[in-house]
């Protein structure tokens, strides 16, 4: 809105100005980056602007106790009516100092702790940590262990995505998918339970391979699950994919452009939905992923709907990977030769895997002792959550809910 336009200042009511500016800004067709320079993720709460009818802008605390923030996330919303003028995330309510704990435990002892970060995808966390330490020790897990790892990790990806779908749909107001996804997630958890005795925080892998050989009938159970689940995914899609209200609530909502997504370091399905065909399983294969044939689904617009479709397709691709892995699983040992007392040589290593939520990285510094000198976790949820502000500015309150859901954050991982 140029200052040169005559009559611009005749109306002291600022709300209309803002409406026009912001409706332009949320137009997905504008290619300009929405990220301000420098990028501000906080609000200047001290000076509330005056708006229509002399009423101040509303500042609302969404959370930490709020049904739709997926845990103890607190979002301070600055609203003009229903429109979001800005957000600020307040996190740390679940901070447990995982990185500090790591410095006081041996490598093996720290292994179960990583499960408590992203507790809906505990297996992925364990995989990342074990592989990072293996890299540091310069050992490699035997092929059979790698295959077991792939199967369990992909099952966990399914479980994580199912949980995401259920809660996301519930946020948008569709109650029923939640129960359907939980019913099917139960089957995955049953397999976990049979394999390692735990359902959620599995601690399934050890440094150097796997602790447990697959149980009797593991392949049968997994194959049964593979046959059981595709119609269920179709069922979810039937409820949502072409539902008019679902489309209206998700299309062009929370758009994040390709450039913005990269600048904000967003990873995982959120990045892929913005059109970046990047998946660590393909880009820098780890475990046994280079053996399998699968596609990386990507979206075009980077909106909530694309993120939904990308994750739905990812579930199908996961099934594809699991099927190949179960068919080709080699015989052999499941544990590499690992010293009883782990003393990695002095050095540092960064290893990252494609967790269900994005790039999960471990940066481990060893000082040659039995305890890691420093473990840094690069949590995907933490970094993805940072994009919330860009995605919801100018949108409505209801969109904030949809976007928090679609980012698929787990507060245990954000806060660590």
């Amino acid at each position, binding site marked *: 809105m140029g200052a040169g336009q005559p*009559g611009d200042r005749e*109306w002291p009511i600022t709300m*209309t100005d803002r409406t*026009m500016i912001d409706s332009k800004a949320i137009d997905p067709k504008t290619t300009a980056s929405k990220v301000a320079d420098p990028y501000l993720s906080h609000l200047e709460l001290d000076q509330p602007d005056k708006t229509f*009818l*002399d*009423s101040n802008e509303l500042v609302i605390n969404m959370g930490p106790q709020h049904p739709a923030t997926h845990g103890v996330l607190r979002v301070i919303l600055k609203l003009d009516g229903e429109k979001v003028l800005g957000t600020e995330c307040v996190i740390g309510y679940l901070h447990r100092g995982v990185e500090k704990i790591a410095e006081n435990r041996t490598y093996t002892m720290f292994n179960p702790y990583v499960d408590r970060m992203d507790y809906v995808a505990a297996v992925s966390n364990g995989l990342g940590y074990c592989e990072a330490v293996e890299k540091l020790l310069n050992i490699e897990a035997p092929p059979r262990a790698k295959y077991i790892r792939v199967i369990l990790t992909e099952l966990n990806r399914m479980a994580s995505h199912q949980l995401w779908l259920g809660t996301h749909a519930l946020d948008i107001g569709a109650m029923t998918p939640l129960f359907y996804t939980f019913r099917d997630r139960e089957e995955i958890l049953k397999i976990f339970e049979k394999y390692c005795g735990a359902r959620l925080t599995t601690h399934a892998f050890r440094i150097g391979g796997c602790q447990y050989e697959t149980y009797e009938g593991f392949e049968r159970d997994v194959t049964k699950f593979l046959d059981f689940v595709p119609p269920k995914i179709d069922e979810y899609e039937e409820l949502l994919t072409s539902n008019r209200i679902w489309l209206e609530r998700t299309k062009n909502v929370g758009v994040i452009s390709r450039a913005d997504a990269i600048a904000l370091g967003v990873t995982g399905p959120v990045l892929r939905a913005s059109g970046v065909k990047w998946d660590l399983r393909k880009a820098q294969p780890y475990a046994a992923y280079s053996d399998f044939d699968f596609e990386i689904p990507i979206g075009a617009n980077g909106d909530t709907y694309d993120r939904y479709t990308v994750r739905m397709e990812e579930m199908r691709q996961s099934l594809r990977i699991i099927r190949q892995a179960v068919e080709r699983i080699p015989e052999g040992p499941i544990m590499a030769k690992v010293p009883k007392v782990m003393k990695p040589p002095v050095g540092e290593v960064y290893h990252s895997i494609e967790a269900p939520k994005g790039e999960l990285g471990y940066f481990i510094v060893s000082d040659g002792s039995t305890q890691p000198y420093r473990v840094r976790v690069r949590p995907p949820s933490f970094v993805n959550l940072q994009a919330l502000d860009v995605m919801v500015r100018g949108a409505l309150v209801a969109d904030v809910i949809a976007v928090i859901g679609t980012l698929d954050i787990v507060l245990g991982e954000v806060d660590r």
Partner: protein
Amino acid sequence: MPQVIQPGMQPVATTFFFYFLAGLTLLSGVFVITRKNPVHSALALIFGLLAQAGLYLMLYAPFVAGVQIILYAGGIMVLFLFVIMLVNIERSQREEQFNKQWLVGLLAAIALGGLFVMVYVKGKALFPYPIAQPLENSNTQQIGVMLYGQYMFAFEIASLLLLVAIIGAVVMAKKRI
């Protein structure tokens, strides 16, 4: 289908209801102007309007009563409340009410009172019929016939005026359409 009023259908306790509704109207009127909290005023106004609707019913004008409820109590008052809710209540409560206008108010009240007294004195000459014609069943139709027959022009002009008001409001609220 004009219906003959049967003996069994005589209204019950007419006098009581009249005084009850009239008293309610007056009381809520007083509350409207004395409450400092505008929401309470609006609430009192709603009760006043509802009581008035009751009075219309007693005058065998159910359509007018219904319109009173649906438009005034239901529609306009909601908008009133809408606006009042967004105004900073605390500030308006602190303000002195009628600070400079009590003289004008007094004059208006005296004039209105004089009018009432005059009507009361002249009384029956102005209203030749003791009670309204009980035309309950065809009353609504009569209003329709009147509005779209005899007073069609006035009615249409009034709706045109409203249209102008709507467009004006839209233009004022939005710089660019």
